[in-house]
């Protein structure tokens, strides 16, 4: 999305980003996402597979986070360096989760 190093000289035309209507749309999407999260959490989705509720809730949270990061935090219009920094943060977080859980989930329960 919108890697725009070549467009730096247009900065002052671009820096208002999406304007009030755009921000309002993002805001509405976030509100709708919150309501869907709440409503879906009351439904039992375990018939799909155990823990499906959590997966749905986290997917919506992830989508909401992406909206906030891309539009409210303006990352969508930022340089590659800032994209790299932001994605790097989540990449290291993923490493922490993955390496911790590959240990815990494969331990015998006896040591607890």
């Amino acid at each position, binding site marked *: 999305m919108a890697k725009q190093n070549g467009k*730096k000289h247009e*900065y*002052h035309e671009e*820096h*208002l*980003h999406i*304007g*009030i209507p755009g*921000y*309002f749309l*993002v*805001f509405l999407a*976030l*509100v709708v996402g*919150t309501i869907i*999260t*709440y409503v879906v*959490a*009351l*439904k*039992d*989705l*375990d*018939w799909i597979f*155990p823990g499906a*509720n*959590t997966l749905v*809730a*986290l997917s*919506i*949270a992830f989508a*909401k*986070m992406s909206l*906030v*990061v891309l*539009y*409210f*935090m*303006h990352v969508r219009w*930022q*340089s590659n*360096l*800032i994209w790299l*920094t*932001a994605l*790097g*943060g*989540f990449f*290291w*977080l993923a490493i*922490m*989760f993955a390496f*911790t*859980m590959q240990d*815990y*989930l494969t331990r015998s*329960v006896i040591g*607890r």
Partner: protein
Amino acid sequence: MADTHKHYHQPGLQHQFENMEQQQESATIGMWMFLVQEIMFFGGLFTVYLVFRSRYPMAFAAGSNHLDAFLGGLNTLVLIVSSFTMALTVYYAQKSNRTMQVVMILLTMFFGSVFLGVKVIEYGDKYNHGLIPVSGWNKKTPIQPEIAKSSDSLIETKVSAKETIHADEGTHSEKSQVGHDSHHEKPYYNPTGEFQWNYGGEDLVMMAKEAGYLTEAEKIGYFDPITKEFDPNRFRDKVRIFYWIYFAMTGLHALHMVVGLMIMSWLLLKAIQGTFSAEYYSPVEISGLYWHFVDIVWIFLFPLLYLLGRHFLHGGGH
């Protein structure tokens, strides 16, 4: 550096930067570096959550179901509104509109304060229900009379009998000490101020047991090793872990909100003085990044803490 001369000198430009874009990007990347640290900071707590929830999902569900999901959801919306007004603050700063900047900062601060107010109400409820996971902090908490008779969950009962069995559980050491001073004559008070749990969960565990959902850790963690029956004391200790995580995560988040409000107060002062304009609004942009980050943390905390076991209560889609 000869080519710098072709830029006209903008009033907000510090001399060490080539141009406004570079200055703006430097400030933004510095803030993002800080936010990456914050991601890892909260990430540590999310890892703790992940580890313990993967071991004791049913205790987490029981603990979560006692939280007020309506207030949690309300707070999510409040924070989203404050993020919206924060985004508009940046927008109006870019348009050099001082009045609307001030209005939007005030609105952001208002919604931030509402969030903290709701949080205080929630913490108060937890305190009144004896759910502070620290020994000695629940001394004044009355135990609900209707469940006091099934006082397995009270520490004073049965503890001495179980001392030997619980040798493998570290959390029981403090209870072993208090088990001897008997307070049976005062059933409505929790003499050691220990975390109490009078809100069920056995039905949830039994349902999961029948459905075959119990994790290996739960098969040991919720049941008496001798009688093989559901043990409320052991179950309570697992719920206590959930409440520790709840308070640690929401507490750290609330602390970030307080810091955010301080930043906003400073921003308000500067905005009133007319500091920010289309030429120079980095502080607004950067404060916005912080505010939105705190919002994002809550976007994950809400489903993970408040909603994780709701479907067991309302569902029935089997």
